[in-house]
């Protein structure tokens, strides 16, 4: 068998993070090669290097034995590498044929002009689709009117139109229905027979066992190993994916856990919050684990009233409450530190003082005018309590480091004196020092009796900080572990395994873009 693609000793550094460290990957013609790893293991970085989006800092890429270098995605495409990303990158207002030939449309000459040759484009588009056994797709239809499954087929046809030798598929089944998944598998097998190498990224191990020849596992940007699928097992792959070292974590303080503060019963908010029930008690940190897109943030935003619930009960300190807007939630004592501080947490043109007081303006105002002295004190206290490194309360938050910005967001929510604090990825993108400080703070807040729900994609953080861990998958809470019973193996297993799903394996409806 010939090796079409070979990557050796690939390293890539981003500011503050080592995304890939000495990674290997190789693929043969006609092979389906699965790429596995947790959130943040480096899969995305690796495929972006293969597809020319990023340049590696070190290491070599060879195609059919020849070293190659891609300065941009176009150069990678010219060498026959096509990528189908999770968010499909089609133009909804253009037709199927136009999308397929975007950038390399067949042309014909009229005198000195070279114009698009529509007839050939339509014809060749039809041929391409037929070669994938797709006969039910009108090449003149606008892509925006197609189902997600059909859009994906257009993407695949587009990849073939550049004679792809290597096709990268990033979570291709994440948004598909059962029937579409089966059709996709057929197409993958067809491509395989034709000698196309396929890099297949999926969290669904079942699919890997059904489709792939080999699987390469990454963990924390490092190469763990490559296995022949027929010689390995789900358990072995999972243990290769986890086994992360728990370091630079703040030791959790012991707390006495009190009465339930927040209780959620049968909460529905389709598509990504399905019949969720749980409770968080005073002094307790409940970790919410799950893959990206499993519905954790949606659950948090439902409780917080940003996307009000369709049905179900939210009970605060024993009393049922109605939360229709974030304003309601704040008044009732629920705070939400959002996932993305840049787009959801901060008003970047404002200074620390103005950001810190934004959620509590009402309580520091008289006759709708803000009491300046009180506002300044609030900001000063925040800077002290969270040791925010800033010149003064008047420093614009845009000029702070990521960790300090995050602390400003947290301070905004502490100012509202909440009973329940929901934190969505509280340490994403902050440096190690700030991370430890935020962990210390979370721990202290819990020991003061705050009920904390912490969403995190970092397993060590979830395992290290939580008293209890809930695992979500496809909008449902599928597992619950006590601190003493939880380990990487069983949490990850619950995150990705289909078999333990209570209600079949269909993807949630409506998560389609």
């Amino acid at each position: 068998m010939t090796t079409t693609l070979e990557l050796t000793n690939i390293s890539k550094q981003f500011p503050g993070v080592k995304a890939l460290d000495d990674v290997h990957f190789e693929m043969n013609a006609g092979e389906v090669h699965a790429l596995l790893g947790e959130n943040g293991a480096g899969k995305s970085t690796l495929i972006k290097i293969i597809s020319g989006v990023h340049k590696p800092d070190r290491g070599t890429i060879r195609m059919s034995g020849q070293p190659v270098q891609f300065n941009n995605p176009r150069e990678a495409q010219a060498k026959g590498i096509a990528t189908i990303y999770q968010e499909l990158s089609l133009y909804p207002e253009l037709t199927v044929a136009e999308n397929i030939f975007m950038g390399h449309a067949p042309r014909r000459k009229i005198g000195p002009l070279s114009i698009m040759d529509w007839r050939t484009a339509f014809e060749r588009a039809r041929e391409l689709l037929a070669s994938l056994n797709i006969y039910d797709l009108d090449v003149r239809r606008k892509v925006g009117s197609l189902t997600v499954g059909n859009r994906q087929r257009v993407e695949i046809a587009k990849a073939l139109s550049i004679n792809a030798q290597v096709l990268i598929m990033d979570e291709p089944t994440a948004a598909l229905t059962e029937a579409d998944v089966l059709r996709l598998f057929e197409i993958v097998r067809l491509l395989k027979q034709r000698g196309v190498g396929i890099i297949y990224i999926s969290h669904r191990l079942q699919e890997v066992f059904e489709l792939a020849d080999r699987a390469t596992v990454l963990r924390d940007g490092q190469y763990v190993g490559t296995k022949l699928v027929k010689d390995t097992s789900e358990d072995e792959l999972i243990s290769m994916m986890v086994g992360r070292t728990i370091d630079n974590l703040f030791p959790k303080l012991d707390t006495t856990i009190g009465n339930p503060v927040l209780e959620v019963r049968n909460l529905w908010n389709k598509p990504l919050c399905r019949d969720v029930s749980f409770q968080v008690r005073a002094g307790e940190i409940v970790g919410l684990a799950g893959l990206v897109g499993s519905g954790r943030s949606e659950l948090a935003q439902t409780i917080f009233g940003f996307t009000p619930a369709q049905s179900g009960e939210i009970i605060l300190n024993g009393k049922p409450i109605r939360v229709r807007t974030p304003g309601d939630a704040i008044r009732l004592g629920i705070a939400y530190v959002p996932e993305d501080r840049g787009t959801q947490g901060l008003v970047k043109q404002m200074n620390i003082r103005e950001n810190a007081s934004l959620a509590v303006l009402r309580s520091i105002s008289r006759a709708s005018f803000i009491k300046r002295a009180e506002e300044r004190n609030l900001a000063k206290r925040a800077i002290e309590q969270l040791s925010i490194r800033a010149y003064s309360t008047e420093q614009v938050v845009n000029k702070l480091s990521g960790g300090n910005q995050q602390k400003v967001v947290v301070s905004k929510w502490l100012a509202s004196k909440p009973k329940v604090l929901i934190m969505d990825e509280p340490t994403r993108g902050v440096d190690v020092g700030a991370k430890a400080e935020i962990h210390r703070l979370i721990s202290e807040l819990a020991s003061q009796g705050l009920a904390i729900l912490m969403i995190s994609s970092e397993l060590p953080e979830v395992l290290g900080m939580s008293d209890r861990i809930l695992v979500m998958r496809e909008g449902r809470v599928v597992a619950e572990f006590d601190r003493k019973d939880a380990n990487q193996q069983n949490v990850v297993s619950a995150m990705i395994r289909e078999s333990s799903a209570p209600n079949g394996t269909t993807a949630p409806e409506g998560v389609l873009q």
Partner: protein
Amino acid sequence: MTATAARSHIHRDNLLTRSLSFLSSQEVILFFVLVGLIVLVGTSNPRYVAERNFINILNGNAYIAVAAIGMSMVIISRNIDISVGSLIGVLGTLSGSLAINGYPIWMSWVVPVLAGALVGAVIGFLVAYLRIPSIVVTLGLLSILKGGLITITGGAWITDLPKDYFLAQIKTPPVSLLGLNLPEIPSPIVFMIVLTILAALWMRYSMTGRAIYAVGGNAEAARLSGISEKRIIMTVFIINGLTVGIAAVLWATQLSIIQSTVPAGLELQVITSAVVGGVSILGGIGTTVGAMLAAILLSAINSALVFIDVSPYWFRAVVGVLILFTVLVDLLRRQRSRASARG
């Protein structure tokens, strides 16, 4: 102007950086450009700086500065209103019609202001609740108002206005201070200064003012902080309607004839005042004081062209250069602060 001038976005860790940030604020820069212009043109033609001329410059354009107050708030909230010129025309005509049809004079002054607020509420509703972009809503309104006005009035001029109708021609009583006769100040200038200062204080110190900056700066963060974006957008457009109404009355009552048409390009002058005054077209930044200074600067430039014998047709070109220049400076400032945030 010092008290309200700088809504400073730069840290004030010591006196030096504090003064630097104050001196580099749009308001102070505008002030010095204005003074520079007056000195320069004044030396080449002393009549330019004559008291009467100067008061005339301010007086004739004060209504633009008043309209720029509401416009600043609209743009700070990351919206825009391009119908203000037409609305001023319509409300001015309404004012005059009321006056010549025997309604009490006070009604011809108050009703257009209330009507302005009502129109603002409608725009606000369409933008906030039906989620139609404000540029589309006000573009539609612009056409409706312009077309409607011509159809209804047939372009007839309103003349024979009652003598005590002319609000804009009322002046402050003469005051002598330390033997000096202070100039009598016409009411439009009083309106301009008082309203600008009130609005500046409100924007800086009130909860709603803060919320307007927050919604314009980052609407999602504002919503997640419990601020009702819809309510804020309604508020902003209603206030804008009020200031447009006042501007319309000042515009209508300064001349003895109301032409029943929409003053050409007026909305652009109002928007230009806000933008040149330092209101970021991307939302979240700016002050009403800056907008007022920019309105004054624009009218001073317009008049200066006449005094230094340059064709007034150049005015538009000069305004265009000013707009591009300020937007460029705004973008550069943002880029710089983004770059330093990475460090």
